[in-house]
């Protein structure tokens, strides 16, 4: 315990303060080619007649398209056995504005821009889908051949579902049903360092990849899979990230730069413009959450029905993982014994969405906490006391029936009440996370108890 309570300098603090930190864009490799992308100008279209010949005829210009990729489709979760749905470069079909179609490397930034401007393709535009609520309609635009939502949860289920207790009985017994719909918007991570990558082909045949990735080994695996190379052909240099917040978990640039370095035999660098960062990089997902709670007049929550539509954008990437975390947290920090949760990862023609600070959980926390306050308002109960009454305690179980061994809900809410000067009755002010008993163990919560010792 040498560090707890000590004043410990940041290992990179002095380097940051003296301008010595070497971010990816600060790596100096002579003879580096600039990289730029030819991107989809529309949200949803069939693409034909992609013509890169004029660009390829330019002096010192190298071009890659879907034809150049040894394994075109490889998903970020493929290593877990989840089928891929996203091509590295669009082939025949584009599904979001800004989707990369061809990528060029050229001796200067200006030459790279000129090469991109010389690339042409025909786009037969189709209606685009932006509202997850319309994805299930019979006349909705079709995003993927297999449908508008992800279908590869366990046993090839098309949704993440949780069932606990007896939901119908809970709703039959309720004094009141409290409903709410919550729709947090997409958020761009907006790191000050845009997506950037430098790849150097080494004399020994390896590729050295300088990457701003937040997930170095993920990126290494993704590059190796697309290029069909063993991992020992890749040396990935990372760890210096100019802000990520989840947005640098996807492998945005590394694979395409590696292909261009292979093709040209020269070092290449791709630094996204701020415009690309806003238009083409992944965002936090927008979510659509519907909550209906069966509650009693004295403030017990007997059951919760919840529907979540997780907007994945055009491709699933990490969204199934995010929705799974979301589902495990859909009761918030409270014990609700009867549950029916259905969540869908829905495709739209938005930019693909990804992790951001508390992936999948911040959205559901927003919904559940707002909903707690709504219940308190409808019942005329103190919102702190409603939360303390239903708070997770030792021996309570999570939606997926994991017993809590050290839940922090009670001390957290007491600390908040103290910080804002909210007076509680002695009964609540003295509450602890101890196992339920007496008035705090009503009949409807008995059945959900687990054994924390067994966990």
């Amino acid at each position, binding site marked *: *315990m*040498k*560090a*707890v*309570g*000590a*004043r*410990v*300098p*940041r290992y*990179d*603090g*002095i*380097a*940051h*303060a*003296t*301008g*010595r*930190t*070497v*971010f990816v*864009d*600060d790596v*100096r490799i002579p003879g580096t080619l600039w990289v730029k992308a030819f991107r989809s100008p529309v949200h949803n279209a069939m693409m034909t007649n992609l013509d890169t010949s004029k660009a390829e005829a330019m002096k010192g210009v190298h071009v890659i398209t879907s034809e150049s990729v040894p394994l075109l489709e490889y998903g970020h979760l493929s290593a877990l056995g989840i089928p891929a749905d996203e091509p590295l470069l669009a082939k025949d079909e584009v599904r979001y504005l800004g989707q990369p179609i061809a990528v060029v490397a050229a001796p200067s930034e200006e030459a790279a821009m000129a090469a991109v401007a010389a690339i042409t393709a025909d786009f037969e535009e189709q209606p685009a889908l932006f509202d997850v609520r319309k994805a299930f309609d019979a006349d909705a635009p079709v995003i993927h051949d297999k449908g508008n939502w992800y279908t590869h949860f366990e046993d090839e289920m098309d949704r993440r579902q949780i069932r606990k207790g007896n939901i119908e009985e809970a709703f039959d017994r309720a004094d009141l049903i409290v409903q709410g719909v919550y729709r947090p918007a997409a958020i761009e*991570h*907006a*790191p*000050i*360092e*845009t997506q950037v990558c430098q790849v150097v082909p080494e004399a020994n045949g390896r590729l050295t990849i300088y990457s701003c990735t937040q997930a170095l080994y993920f990126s290494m695996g993704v590059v190796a899979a697309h290029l069909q190379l063993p991992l020992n052909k890749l040396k990935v240099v990372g760890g210096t*990230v*100019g*802000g*990520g*917040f989840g947005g640098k978990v996807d492998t945005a640039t590394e694979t395409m730069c590696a292909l261009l370095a292979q093709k040209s035999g020269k070092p290449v660098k791709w*630094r996204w*413009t*701020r415009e690309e960062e806003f238009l083409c990089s992944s965002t936090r997902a927008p979510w659509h959450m519907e909550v209906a709670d069966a509650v009693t007049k004295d403030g017990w929550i007997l059951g919760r029905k919840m529907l979540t539509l997780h907007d994945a954008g055009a491709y699933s990437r990490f969204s199934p993982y995010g929705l799974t975390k979301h589902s495990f947290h859909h009761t918030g920090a409270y014990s609700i014994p009867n549950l029916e949760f259905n969540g869908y990862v829905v495709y739209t023609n938005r930019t693909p969405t990804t992790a951001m600070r508390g992936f999948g959980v911040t959205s559901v926390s927003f919904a559940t906490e707002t909903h707690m306050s709504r219940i308190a308002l409808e019942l005329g109960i103190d919102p702190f006391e409603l939360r303390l009454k239903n708070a997770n305690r030792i021996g309570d179980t999570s939606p997926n029936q994991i017993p809590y061994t050290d839940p922090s809900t009670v001390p957290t809410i007491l600390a908040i009440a103290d910080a804002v000067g909210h007076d509680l009755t002695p009964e609540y002010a003295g509450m602890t996370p101890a196992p339920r008993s007496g008035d705090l163990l009503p009949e409807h919560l008995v059945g959900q108890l687990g054994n924390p010792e067994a966990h």
Partner: protein
Amino acid sequence: MNLTVNGVDTTIESGPLTSLLDVLREELGITSAKAGCEQGGCGACTVLVNGASRRSCLTPVASIDGAAVTTVEGLGSPEHMSPVQQAFTHHYAAQCGFCTSGMMMAAQAYIEGGGSDDHEAIQEALGGHVCRCTGYVKIIDAVAAVARGESFDLSVTAAGTAMTNIGGMA
């Protein structure tokens, strides 16, 4: 064209409309100024031109021919950090570090201009600088500490003895 960069007289070969940012980074290899947006919106490329803070990404080099340019490399070294550099280190004002150079140059101009430790005045001085990590509190605390003339002990302390002077906690 000529510039005095961090005290060194330098002949510039780049074209006259090349941004000062590209001259520093690509011609001279001085990389502390960052390309965050290249449109004057984020502040990460800020340097001092004749003592005033300037967005180097929006400054054609011909427009400042003959000027003195200062970057973070010109403030101090790891062995001899300037007060602003010491304060940013002491107050944990740099998190990812990408906005830090521009932020420090704006702070340097503010301090050289006789700025006070008034938080609103510091916020105004740093208003054009975007930081996505820190929430700004520690940065403002660092600048205020320099304005008050505080000195900084950057050594490691024993557990439990020195958490009282960390930015934002007072």
